[in-house]
């Protein structure tokens, strides 16, 4: 174990800093759009304007972004180095410079195309997705197919050179802004349910697609319902073989869980709650002086540190070519539960003022810390409800027998 930065890495950090000083100025920073937390957690609030794209291209050329993606598809193709990756995250964050776009396109679709896509699909989509020039949404869930995703019914039949798609998707994050959708569509109605699904790329401008926003309990609308009525999709828009889409998507879901399992969200909430406890006067003293609050903060910090160090552990393991299955599988459940408990502490610190809505200026921190209490569900439910995560951990991680009714 060695947590110090050797001279090589200190030099690397200095290089990154110098690059950022030159290439991302105060003026560039001033153009940053304000981002809300859910959008940030799903990675859709990052800048994708012309200036940001120009900057990302420079950073890719220097080998700083998309290090695991081949050059011919728009990445910088660097050897895996968890420490350099960590330094880059730290320095880009410090400079408030555009980093890798983290949405479902780069995090879920790109790895899938690299693994299962055709050469033509990779060339056409990967680089533009990495630069935010093509934005994606994920068409998986349906009203009747949530936890039991494989029972999905949105269907497509071949008609000449096109698939004709009919049906409905739901919980589609950012469908209202997306250019394309990667979707699971039933193409083989006679096959057993998992063997009748095809992974399809659908242009959201195709006639017959209707997007309707779904308002969440926070009041915001990041999700949508998407309706398909005789939508004609070119025949070659499928990834992998026809009828094998379920297995193609397996790789993608794994990537989504890793995305949502990132401890960064919990870290931001914890730092916010600590400030809230220091700044909020409750019954004549700062909340931070209450021994119960102090104890709860320390308990939450232990869990947060465990999540962060576990991240280092996973990075180290992957740098050595190991896949620590269990330690990776649990991150989403662990960090989303933690984020909830942090938000619950923000409620308790805010005392009776926790009943005030986000944005109300008489609430401590304008209610923004308390807002996380409802926003937690975006973390906990995205990519599969907590009980589905528990089933996966138990069956794949602990090798417990499958539920006989669920197969």
């Amino acid at each position: 174990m060695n947590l110090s930065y050797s001279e090589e890495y200190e030099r690397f950090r200095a290089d990154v800093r110098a690059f950022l000083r030159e290439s991302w100025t105060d003026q560039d920073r001033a153009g940053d759009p304000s981002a809300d937390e859910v959008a940030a957690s799903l990675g859709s609030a990052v800048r994708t304007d012309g200036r940001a794209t120009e900057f990302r291209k420079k950073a890719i050329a220097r080998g700083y972004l998309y290090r695991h993606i081949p050059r011919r598809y728009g990445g910088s193709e660097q050897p895996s180095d968890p420490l350099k990756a960590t330094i880059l995250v730290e320095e880009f964050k410090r400079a408030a410079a555009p980093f890798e776009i983290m949405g479902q396109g780069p995090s879920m679709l790109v790895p899938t195309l690299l693994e299962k896509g055709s050469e033509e699909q990779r060339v056409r989509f990967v680089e533009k997705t990495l630069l935010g020039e093509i934005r994606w949404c994920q068409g998986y869930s349906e009203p009747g197919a949530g936890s039991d995703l494989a029972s999905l019914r949105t269907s497509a039949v071949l008609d000449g050179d096109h698939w004709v798609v009919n049906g409905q998707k739901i919980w589609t994050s950012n469908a209202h802004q997306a250019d394309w959708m990667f979707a699971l569509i039933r193409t083989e109605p006679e096959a057993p349910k998992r063997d009748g699904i095809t992974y399809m790329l659908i242009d959201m401008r195709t006639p017959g697609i209707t997007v309707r926003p779904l308002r969440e309990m926070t009041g915001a609308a990041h999700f949508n319902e998407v309706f398909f009525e005789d939508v004609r999709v070119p025949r070659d828009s499928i990834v992998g073989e026809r009828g094998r889409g379920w297995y193609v998507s397996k790789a993608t879901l794994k990537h989504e869980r890793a995305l949502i399992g990132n401890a960064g969200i919990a870290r931001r909430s914890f730092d916010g709650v600590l400030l809230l406890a220091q700044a909020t006067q409750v019954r004549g003293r700062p909340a931070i002086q209450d021994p119960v609050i102090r104890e709860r903060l320390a308990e939450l910090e232990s869990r947060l540190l465990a999540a962060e160090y576990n991240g280092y552990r996973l990075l180290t393991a992957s740098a050595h070519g190991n896949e620590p299955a269990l330690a990776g599988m649990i991150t989403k459940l662990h960090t989303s539960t933690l984020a909830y408990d942090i938000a619950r502490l923000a409620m308790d610190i805010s005392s009776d003022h926790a009943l005030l809505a986000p944005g109300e200026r008489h609430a401590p921190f304008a209610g923004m810390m308390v807002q996380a209490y409802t926003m937690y569900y975006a973390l906990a439910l995205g990519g599969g409800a907590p009980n589905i995560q528990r089933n996966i951990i138990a069956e794949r991680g602990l090798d417990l027998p499958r539920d006989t009714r669920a197969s």
Partner: protein
Amino acid sequence: MDFGLSEEQVLLKDTIRRYLDAECPTTRVRKVMESADGHDPELWRGLTSLGVTGMIVPAKHGGTGLELLDLALAAEELGWAAAPGPFLANALGTVALLAAGDQEASERWLPAVAAGTSIVSFALAEAIGEWDAAHLETRAESNRLTGEKSLVPFASIADAIAVAAVDATGPGLWIVERGAPGLEITALSGNDMTRRVDRIRLTATPATRIASGRAAIDRTRDAGLILLAADAWAGARRCHHMTTEYAKTRVQFGQPIGSFQGIKHQLADLIADLEPALSLWWYAAHAFDRMPEASARPAALAKAHLGDLFDRAARTSIELHGGIGYTWEYDLQLWFRRAMFDRAFLGEASYHRRRAADLAGW
């Protein structure tokens, strides 16, 4: 940066695991538990030959000069096996000697510790709940100690005890040898009989001063917190492992109970909290070794968190087993009791969380 174990460390763990699997099954654990002094000299010799007793003793004193992280990996393996005996007591005594740095005492005791021929323990607590050098009543005057110490691990078999006491200049550490005049040892009946604790009374007992100030006392306590966290992690994993295996074979309603989501979800929740917590004590041990000025807080947080998790793992495991888990005969109770020890020894979780809050300057 490398947040993982070296090949040597993996090998070390594996060697201790294989030795304890072969030599320390729970039948032997139970035998030692039921013995008068809770000490099995043959087991101790075995651990000595694997280098456990001399692990952190410098090479010049006959040890292997490794670090607390290595010792914590040994603690993990002993915790997995519920190995009985004075490992923790002796580790505390060794850290106390090392932290004190008194040359004469080091030459006298460390080679014997490494050779497994002497056991050195550590005495800190007096009143309930105080594990802090700021709250000592035991007085030193002209190299004689007077006072009472509670919860001293394996005092009755120790060849020497590093005793925290105060004199006119403040706190410090003194070595009291076995059989010293005025030393009275009373064995206490504990919940976990694999790790014994005693009460000692000192009446003008001759002692040798080895450290002035509280630094060596703090350092020893922090090492103890980390070793307990490692033990707790392994104990919790063992409970989880036993229960997962049981759930695969125990059949009710015509199927293994592990196919029921009620069982699956509790085991999944537990492992989701346990698995990342490994890195908490790894980090604390690494900080102790390489960032001593910043190691008190990670040690406190690790001990508090892992102690609670061990308790939860043991309780959940017994519940998931049903009645069989509540019997004396079934081995889960061994770890349930060790969880009670790990949570309480050196102070309960909320005490250390409040210390961590103070140390952060909140």
